[in-house]
């Protein structure tokens, strides 16, 4: 290891020199930490590698992902790969209009006083806005903003009321789908399949040899 271009950081409470340009996860590996619990996709999507850091001369502790945060000189950083969050127990398939049960299932949501401490999302989600929309029963707005949620739980770690916004939002997202209109095009296709509309043609095509199938494919064209 060439330490000529190295910088000094404080990693998991230990001041140490590491080569510049590494991510937090890579610096942990480089310095002998056998990190497995906080590693997943290495692409910033699985939410396993959350970190808390303080940059040099900064007054504000920040939050991010260990596979995405590139280290800088003077950085103080620890991993926070897990934060205890309550997950409610419910069976969506046995509920008629699940959204009406939100207040029982996640009653803590209604203690939210919009302090916005949860706005630390590494995916730039305005978590406070999602929670406010949820409280105001504007469920479409709430779900529209959580498609990018990676369930890392950093927002939950900041909430003084002990709300786990990622689980509340996921319940709303799931419940909303159950209450939506069943897609007409899927309904149509399912009934066609039930009446075996494609069965014969599919059996015929599946029985074709390679050459025959290849020329059949050419005749299909674009739909």
């Amino acid at each position, binding site marked *: 290891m060439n330490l*000529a271009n190295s910088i000094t950081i404080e990693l998991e409470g230990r001041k140490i020199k590491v*080569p*510049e*340009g*590494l991510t937090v996860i*890579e610096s942990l590996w480089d310095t002998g930490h056998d990190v*497995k619990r906080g*590693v*997943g*996709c*290495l*692409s*910033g*999507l*699985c939410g*396993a590698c959350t970190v808390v850091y303080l940059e040099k001369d900064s007054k504000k502790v920040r939050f991010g992902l260990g*596979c*995405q945060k*590139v280290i800088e000189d003077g950085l103080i950083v620890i991993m926070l790969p897990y934060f205890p969050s309550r997950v409610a*127990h419910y*069976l*969506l*398939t046995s509920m008629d209009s699940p959204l009406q049960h939100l207040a029982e299932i996640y009653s803590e949501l209604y203690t939210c006083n919009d302090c916005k401490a949860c706005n630390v999302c590494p*995916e*730039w989600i305005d978590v406070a806005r999602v929670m406010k929309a949820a409280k105001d029963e504007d469920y479409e707005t709430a*779900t529209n903003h959580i*498609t*990018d*949620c990676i*369930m890392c739980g950093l927002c939950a770690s900041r909430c003084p009321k002990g709300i786990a916004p990622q689980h509340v939002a*996921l319940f709303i*997202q*799931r*419940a*909303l*789908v*159950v209450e*939506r209109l*069943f*897609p*007409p*095009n*899927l309904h*149509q*296709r*399912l009934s066609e*399949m039930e009446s075996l509309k*494609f069965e014969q*043609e*599919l059996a015929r*095509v*599946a029985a074709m040899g*390679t050459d025959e*199938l*290849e020329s059949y*494919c050419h005749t*299909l*064209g*674009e*739909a």
Partner: protein
Amino acid sequence: MYSGAMSDAIEKVNATRERRKLEQIALLPEEAAQKLLNSYHPDYRESAFRNLRVGVNCGARTTHEIADLLESFSDLDYTKIDLRPEYDTDVLVLGGGGAGATAALFAESNGARVMLATKLRLGNSNTIMAMGGMQVSVDERDSPVRHYCDTMAAGKFAGRECLVKALVNDGPQIVKWLLDIGVDFDRDAIGNLLTKKAGGISAPRLISIGDHTGLNIMKVLKDEIGMRDSIEVSEFTPAVELTTNEAGECNGAVLFDLGRKRHFVVRAKAVVLATGGSGRLHMQGFPTSNNFGATGDALVIAYRAGARLEGVDSFQYHPTGVMFPEHMVGVLVTEAIRSLGGHLLNAKGERFVNELETRDICAAAVIRECENGNGVMTRSGKGGVWLDTPLIEEISGKGVLRKRFPSLYRHLMRVKIDISKQPLLVFPTLHYQNGGILIDKNGETTVKNLFVAGEAAGGIHGRNRVMGNALLDIFVFGKRSGLAASEKRFNDPGKVTLTHVYSYYNMLKSLRISSVAKSPTLFPEFIVNKL
């Protein structure tokens, strides 16, 4: 942030942009395309392959990386393991991605007790990285017959008829199931499932959830598993060996507890192996888009148990993986960027291939440019070509990149690269294992009571997989294998043994093979050598 030579190279991209807007590059005629593949595609590089000397597929061609694992003794001392089961269950699911989760849910709903063991956390998988969407024929212009033809044609007609038929026939039912458990697919104005076209697909068939399709499905599956009382989840416990009974049928697995650093045995009536692909073996030194745990473990342990493999000499190299910044090497840049008109450019700022060619041809063309000295070098000496993303903003309007590809945009903004103003350096990345362990239409392998689902399975995608079919395949065969495995719940699993391992090792010994490898690999070795 770009600097030095790379900044200079970007000037050339900017200089040619206006001219390139009008430039047309024809698709390669079949013969020229084949020649390009033969010369530059990694699957055709004979020196990277060898024929297996042991096992069911003796004589079959595969990469050195896989052959090294199959032709070796495990570093595990199999003679000293205590084979008394610590857990007894009906269905043991190995793997916590989309396929494993689906198998567990269906097995449970059919009345089986299920244990799901995974190497990392439940949900840490390649499923969450599936961005573009899932192929299902729900559009009125589309049909399962078209889906069948597209899948077979893309796989160069090497896929198995019964598997592809199962795939396309089950699609609509699978979407219904996903909707029932609360997966929020994108809709059009009247509530239809929104369908999109993509390369190699003859009708609008991709259904999606923004650019985070797999992630949003996995979140729901994981949540749902937590609600089912008969599914026990065991995280950080990868499988290192399967177990068999007196008749050679699979009846459990040896797992390794990463925390306690000890092995333990789970006995089951049936096992569903869903541990995914092998990108982290970094075939031929390629970067990969795969997650940390994708080390091909399923191939190794199933092969020792006598399961037949198929097509494990065929891999998908996605033409556009990130090559710079260094910490993102291998991360996938979706096909959609090229579909929107993004150009691929060499160091001179010139196009060298029609960007809408199939994945294998585009990948081969990029490799050709880099090998012939037309690549752009990074500080650490790796080469790549430019993907002209600012061009898309010029064609489709300002802000389109941030809107359509929010996660890619964000990840690069974090390191001060604005892809709406600067191009992105890319190089082919090892993306998908086209082959795997051969299954029948219920997901069962040639070893009785051993099922496989997901990327670990082989026979579906032939020699090339078309976009969106992997996401469908994990649910279709997850469901089929979960249901079929749970039907075995009244079986007597028999005595837990490692007899198959002994006989496999005897074969190795008779061939004077004595190499010992960490097999299965479990975790890739990370050598941080960037400077």
